[in-house]
C-alpha cells in the first residue's frame, strides 16, 4: 500500500514537472509564450515573438544570449566557455541563455541527448521560426545570419557578435557590462 502511494506520488510529481514546460513564465510573469508543440520536448520552444521578452529583460541582470545548434561545430566548441563563464558569474547577476536553432527533426534525436550528455547548466531554449529574414535584423541590424552568434545585454548596454568566442574573449566582453 505504502509503495503504491509512493508510486502514485511519483507519477503525480512527474505530471507536474511536465506542466512546467507549457507556458514558461519567470518571476516577472511576462516571459515568453511557447508555441503549441512544446509538450514532448525538454526545452521551451519559442517563435520569435515568444523569444523577444528574453532579449529585453529589465531585471538588472546581464544576459548572454548565444545562438547555436548541435550541428554547428564552432558553436559546440565554444559552449564550454559559456558554461564556464556562467558558473563563475551566475552569483554576479549574469544569466546565460543558449538559444538552439536545431531543426524540429533534431530536437529529440540530437538536442536532448546532447544537452544531457554535456550536462549543460545554462538555460536552453529552442527558437523555431522559419521567417528568418524578418527576425534576424530585429536581433541585430548587421547580423547576416551566420552562427555562432551572441548577444550580450543589460539595461545599460547591448552588443552583438556574429563570431565564435574563446573563453578569454567572452570574459573580456562580459566584463564591459559588469
Amino acid at each position: 500500500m505504502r509503495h503504491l502511494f509512493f508510486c502514485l506520488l511519483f507519477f503525480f510529481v512527474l505530471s507536474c514537472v511536465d506542466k512546467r514546460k507549457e507556458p514558461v513564465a519567470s518571476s516577472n510573469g511576462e516571459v515568453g509564450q511557447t508555441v503549441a508543440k512544446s509538450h514532448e520536448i525538454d526545452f521551451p520552444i519559442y517563435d520569435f515573438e515568444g523569444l523577444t521578452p528574453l532579449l529585453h529583460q529589465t531585471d538588472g541582470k546581464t544576459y548572454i544570449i548565444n545562438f547555436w545548434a548541435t550541428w554547428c561545430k564552432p558553436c559546440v566548441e565554444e559552449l564550454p566557455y559559456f558554461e564556464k563563464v556562467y558558473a563563475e558569474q551566475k552569483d554576479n547577476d549574469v544569466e546565460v541563455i543558449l538559444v538552439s536553432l536545431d531543426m524540429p527533426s533534431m530536437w529529440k534525436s540530437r538536442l536532448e541527448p546532447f544537452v544531457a550528455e554535456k550536462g549543460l547548466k545554462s538555460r536552453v531554449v529552442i527558437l523555431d521560426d522559419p521567417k528568418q529574414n524578418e527576425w534576424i535584423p530585429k536581433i541585430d541590424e548587421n547580423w547576416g545570419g551566420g552562427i555562432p552568434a551572441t548577444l550580450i545585454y543589460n539595461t545599460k548596454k547591448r552588443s552583438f557578435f556574429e563570431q565564435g568566442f574563446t573563453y578569454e574573449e567572452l570574459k573580456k566582453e562580459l566584463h564591459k557590462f559588469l
Partner: protein
Amino acid sequence: MTMKTLKTLGILTLVFFLGAFSKTVNLTDAGYDIGDIAADFSLKNIDGTMVSLADFGNAKGFLVIFTCNTCPYAVAYEDRIIALDAKYKPLGVPVIAINPNNPAVKPGDSYAEMKVRAQEKGFTFPYVFDEGQTVYPQYGATRTPHVFLLEKTDEGNKVVYIGAIDDNYQDAALVEEKYVENAVDAMLAESEIEVKTTRAIGCSIKV
C-alpha cells in the same frame, strides 16, 4: 589648440560620419553589394574540368550559390537548388554551386565527398570547389547556402540579389516568398527587383 589639430579633428569627424553612413547600406562588411561587378573565377568542377562564368557565352545571368555537403540548411535546400537550375538554366540563368569550406576543417566537404554528394543527388549544375578559399571572401559569402544572383551586362556580371533562396528552410510547401525566383523573374523581365537582399540562418563558412 593649433590650427593643425583643428583641421585633423575636422577630417577625423568627417571620416567618422562618412563611415557611419556607408555602414548602414553595407550588409556584409566585406564583399559585394548590390550593383557591384562580380569577378570571374576558375574553379574545379566535380568532373575535373575548370569552370568560369566566361564559359557560358549565352547566359543572361548566373545563380552563384555557396553551398556544401554538410550543413543541414544546405542539405535542406538541395532539391530546391536542383529545381532552380531546371527552371532557369533553359531561360539563360544557370546555377553554379561553389563549396567554400576548407576540408581540413570539415572533412565531409572535401572534393571527393563533393563528387559523391553530387552523384547521389543528381546535381544538374557545376559544383565547384573553392580551393584555397579565395573566391567566397571576394563575394562576401558568410554562410551556406548563400545566393548571389548576377546579371550579365555590358559592364560585366552585376550583383543584383544577395541572400536566401526563400522564406522557409524547413518546408518547401510552406514557402510564402520565393526570393530568388522573384529576383530572377524580375531580372529577366527587365523590371525592378523588389527584394534585393535577405538574411537567413546558415552554417558559417569553415576556413
